[in-house]
């Protein structure tokens, strides 16, 4: 076999994010984080007696180290298993890549991923920066939430700005005014400039039929493109993160979660989200069968009547194309009930851009989108 390409690998040791801006971080895996999200733990370093290792475990039938007969079986719920799988993936990526980053928009899926990362490296700090591709069409409370979270966890925030590309004339505003599709170029440039080799995304396979086909570790070529017909087989829980210079990997730790799983977990873990995920009063107008918020980038046309409604958002993104749903769900528990009974997917209900065609997401992903 030839050795014409160099593998940037995947060493056996975990490496911290070595961005210049992070030079102050501890060299060996700037592990760590925390939270406020988890209960403080008592008596951490107490020396435990070196017992004869729960000798009861060595039953006649069971192998040593197997569940002892008579011990209460540890029943893991589907959420426990999904959580454990996600943490395993996050730890693998951090161990095998030189410069990971996590896509963080302040949206619920990215907040969930960050929460999982804090658990994965406790009591250390989350050992990678977060990356936000800012459309400029933001809900102000989401940006405020983003900044507060980054501050609380002591993270570095890298922002790629769609607005700057438009101002420089490198991207053109679309006729429909939405900016979600414009995120691809700033995303790929930011990945390149920061030499990120792995980027965590909060994509879930239940969101879209194209996503349903994507691997948990998804290789992107030198142009950031996804080739759905040429994906590596993903076997057992052995993730192959090998890549060559210029390639990078998108990692989707919550691939196997559904929208309902996400909400049940948010409820269970009491994870804080931007307030607009819960019922609140807002001035809205109807367009394309959705309630659109009145805002700088989202103005009603003369024929569109503005009303005040109690609404909440199921996704947050470009404010100009993200719709709200009428809802009285004021907390996570109420949202769980609502999502379980919903007859529309979150994208169908609230994303004008994803309704364009059956292949909207596939086409964007091939170009390098999230």
């Amino acid at each position: 076999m030839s050795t014409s390409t160099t593998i940037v690998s995947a060493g056996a040791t975990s490496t911290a994010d070595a961005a210049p801006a992070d030079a102050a971080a501890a060299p060996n895996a700037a592990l760590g984080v925390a939270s406020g999200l988890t209960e403080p733990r008592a008596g951490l370093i107490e020396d435990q007696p070196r017992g004869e290792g729960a000798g009861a475990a060595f039953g006649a039938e069971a192998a040593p180290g197997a569940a002892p007969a008579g011990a209460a079986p540890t029943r893991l719920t589907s959420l426990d298993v999904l959580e454990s799988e996600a943490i395993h993936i996050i730890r693998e990526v951090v161990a095998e890549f030189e410069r990971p980053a996590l896509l963080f928009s302040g949206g619920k899926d990215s907040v969930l991923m960050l929460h999982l990362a804090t658990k994965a490296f406790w009591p250390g700090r989350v050992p990678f920066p977060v990356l936000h591709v800012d459309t400029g069409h933001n809900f102000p409370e989401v940006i405020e939430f983003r900044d507060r979270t980054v501050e609380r966890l002591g993270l570095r925030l890298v922002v790629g700005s769609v607005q700057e590309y438009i101002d420089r004339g490198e991207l053109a505003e679309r006729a429909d005014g939405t900016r979600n599709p414009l995120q691809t170029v700033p995303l790929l440039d930011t990945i390149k400039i920061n030499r990120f080799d792995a980027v965590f995304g909060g994509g879930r396979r239940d969101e879209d039929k194209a996503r349903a086909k994507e691997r948990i570790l998804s290789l992107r070529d030198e142009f950031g493109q996804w080739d759905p017909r040429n994906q590596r087989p993903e076997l057992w829980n052995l993730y192959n993160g090998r890549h060559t210079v210029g390639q990078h990997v998108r990692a989707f730790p919550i691939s196997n979660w559904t929208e309902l799983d996400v909400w049940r977990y948010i409820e269970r873990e009491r994870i804080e989200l931007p307030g607009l995920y819960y019922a609140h009063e807002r001035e809205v107008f109807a367009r394309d069968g959705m309630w659109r918020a009145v805002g700088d980038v989202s103005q009603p046309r003369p024929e569109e009547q503005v009303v005040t409604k109690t609404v909440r958002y199921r996704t947050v993104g470009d404010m100009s194309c993200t719709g709200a749903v009428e809802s009285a769900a004021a907390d996570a528990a109420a949202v769980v009930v609502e999502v379980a009974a919903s007859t529309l997917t979150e994208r169908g209900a609230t994303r004008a851009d994803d309704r364009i065609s059956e292949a909207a997401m596939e086409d964007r992903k091939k170009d390098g989108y999230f």
Partner: protein
Amino acid sequence: MTAQLLSPPALGESTLFRFATAGSVDDGKSTLVGRLLHDSKAILADQLDAVARTSADRGFGGANATGIQKIDLALLTDGLRAEREQGITIDVAYRYFATDRRSFVLADCPGHVQYTKNTVTGASTADAVVVLIDARKGVLEQTRRHLSVLRLLRVPHVLVAVNKIDLVDYSEDVFAGIEANVRQVGAELGLADVLVVPVSALEGDNVVAASPRTPWYAGPSLLEILETLATTDDLEGGLEPFRFPVQSVIRPQGALAPGLADDDGGLAFRDYRAYAGQVASGAIQVGERVTVLPSGRPTVVVGIDFAGTELQRAVAPQSVSLRLADDIDVARGDLIAAAGTFAETSQDLYGELCWLSPKPLREGAKVLIKHGSRTVQALVRVISGKLDLENFREQPASSLELNDIGSAQLRLASPLPVEAYARHRRTGAFLVIDPTDGNTLAAGLVREHPGDHEGERYSI
């Protein structure tokens, strides 16, 4: 997304069950998956609308079709443009649905060209695989191959759905004939307890609910079976010894999480050191003795941490961090195992390789082996044969091509704690990776070490 048939509180207690479909092209896998999703109310109105539009464009179901007959259920999983255009499934699709007992992760594995690759991929994580047979065709060569692969991978439960039973007029005789055939092949291959169910994916018979059109079939519907089968971890948690591949060392020192650094805890955590990983099999309790491999050093687990909570016990597949009594050298790639349960590590690896790459394998090739959390270089010394999937016997071979399942002997650059897949599903598996482009070449299953080969060993 799930079904309104569940009350959310019950969902919080539900368990996770992973299964895959396998079968030849056009046996109706995608339709079955679509049917399961549809009938368990996992398809929401907007998804159904989109599929209905595409189905109408193609004239699916014909002019006389009504209701659900007008919808090509396969379009619910055939998510790529090329798949919809060609009417085939190209790649494994993952779908999700839930009942009040279980959350399901479903892998729809296509049956054509790359069937071995797709079946092996889907089956590697599956608690069960549903093999489809077209009732008009019965057991085909490809069915035997699929069953062979499932046997090799030790999938805990194999179900056979005899599909399109509507096209044989719900005939008991046709079903009985196919069932007998399946049992015979199952016995030949050593597959125990294959469950055989007559279904019509298109019409919905025996998929979610028992069908009045098959009164001669007394068994449960496919979904009822899937709801009650034991998961891999349920089955093996009590039998397999504790295995824990170390993913990383958690030693935050100065880089503590902000909340912890501020208070007194900061001091307590200063010397914190634990080993992060996911329990691959078995269970561990605080106080139990373990051995760290490959060094062979014995020690005791003094703490099991999970994100600020101290656990007394952890089981597969929990992700936790272990604290050890002795200050010994443990690094990513090491394996922590229950004391007294591991014979030795080895630099010789004998394995079955499911070859998944168009690039053939030849003797003398240098590859990478990923096993647990460790990746090592390896030299392919001998390819000793490959399976004739028609009769499942080994025949001589000196190279492996796409879709071949062969056996090979590899020499590793450093020793690995390998154990036979036949007894250790989780720690007996490995990947073969191409060192030049990083692609995954094969799924590997560790074979029993055939004795001492000291004399043949040489270094690479």
